[in-house]
C-alpha cells in the first residue's frame, strides 16, 4: 500500500471510531443533568477555539496575516445581521484584498 493510501485508511478508520465511540457505547442513555449542561456548552467552547486557531494559528505558532482582516470583516457583517453567504464572501474578499496588497 502506498503512503497516501495508508494515511487515507488510517485517518478514515480513526475518525469513524472517534465519531462513533459514544453513540455506540452509550446507547440511548441520557446524560445526568450536570453532564448534559456541559455537553450543551461544548458547541460554543469548541467553535470559539476553532475560530481562534484558524484565524491566528499557523502550525505551532501564532500568526497575524490576511485571515485576521477577513475574520474581522465577517464579524462586522454578522453584527450587521448580514446573511451567511454575505458574511463568507466578505471574509474571503477582504482577506484576498489584504493578501494582494501585502
Amino acid at each position, binding site marked *: 500500500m502506498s503512503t497516501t493510501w495508508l494515511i487515507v485508511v488510517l485517518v478514515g478508520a*480513526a475518525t469513524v471510531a472517534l465519531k462513533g465511540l459514544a453513540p455506540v457505547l452509550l446507547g*440511548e442513555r441520557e446524560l445526568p443533568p450536570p453532564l448534559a449542561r456541559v455537553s450543551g456548552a461544548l458547541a460554543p467552547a469548541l467553535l470559539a477555539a476553532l475560530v481562534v486557531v484558524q484565524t491566528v494559528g499557523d502550525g505551532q505558532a501564532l500568526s497575524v496575516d490576511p485571515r485576521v482582516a477577513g475574520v474581522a470583516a465577517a464579524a462586522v457583517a454578522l453584527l450587521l445581521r448580514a446573511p451567511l453567504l454575505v458574511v463568507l464572501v466578505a471574509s474571503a474578499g477582504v482577506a484576498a484584498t489584504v493578501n494582494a496588497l501585502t
Partner: protein
Amino acid sequence: MSIMMEPNAISVDRTMLGGARDVAPIAFAALVIGVSFGILARDAGMGVVAPIVMSLTTFAGSAQMAAATVMHDGGAVAAAVAAAVLLNLRYVAIGVSVAPSLRGRRARRLAESQLATDESWAISQDRGRVNRERLIGAGLVLLVAWTTGTVAGAVGGSALGDPATYGFDAMFPALFLALLAGQLGDGRARAAALTGALIALVLTPVAPPGIPIVAAAAGALIALRPERPA
C-alpha cells in the same frame, strides 16, 4: 438566516429537510473549502482518487487539511495520522452530545454518527440537545458539497492557484464565527465560548496542533455550575 441567529427559536424546522435547507449557505462554504483541500492534496502528491475517498470516508475538513499539509511538507505517515487524530479528538465530545439523540441498533447509530461534523452538529442544536433529523439532513448535504468540492480541486489542481489568493483560508474561521454567533444565547454559552477561545489562544504556541482545540472543550465545564434563578 433567522435560524443561524436564533437556534433555539420555536420556529426551528425539526425535519431532515429543515436541516438540509438551513445548512445550504454553509454547504457553499464546504464546497469552496473542499476545493482548497483538493488542490492541497493534489499538490501534496496524493493524486486524484485518494483525496476524494478521504473526503467521503473521513469527512472532517480540518483533519484532512492537516494530514495533507504534513504530507506536503514531507512528514512521516505517523505524523500525518497523529495530526489528523488529534484534531478529530473533539469528535469524542461531539459524539457524547449526539449519542442520546440517536436511535436503533449499534450499526445504525455508528452510521448516523458519521454525519456529525462541526457544521451539521451546530445546525442540529435544539434547546441544548441534538436534533437527529436536522443532523442527518444537514450532514448529507455537507457530505455531497464537501466531496464535490474535493473532486473539483483534485481534478483542477494547481491550475486554480493558491487558495489564499482568493481568501479561502479566511472563510473557514469566518464560517465557525457565524456558527458560534448562533450559539451565544445564554450567559453559560458565552462563558464557555470565552474560556474555550482563551484556552486555544494560550495553548496554540506551546502545544502540538489539535491539542489546543481538544483542551478548549474544558471551557464547557463552566456549565457544571447550576443555573442562576431568573
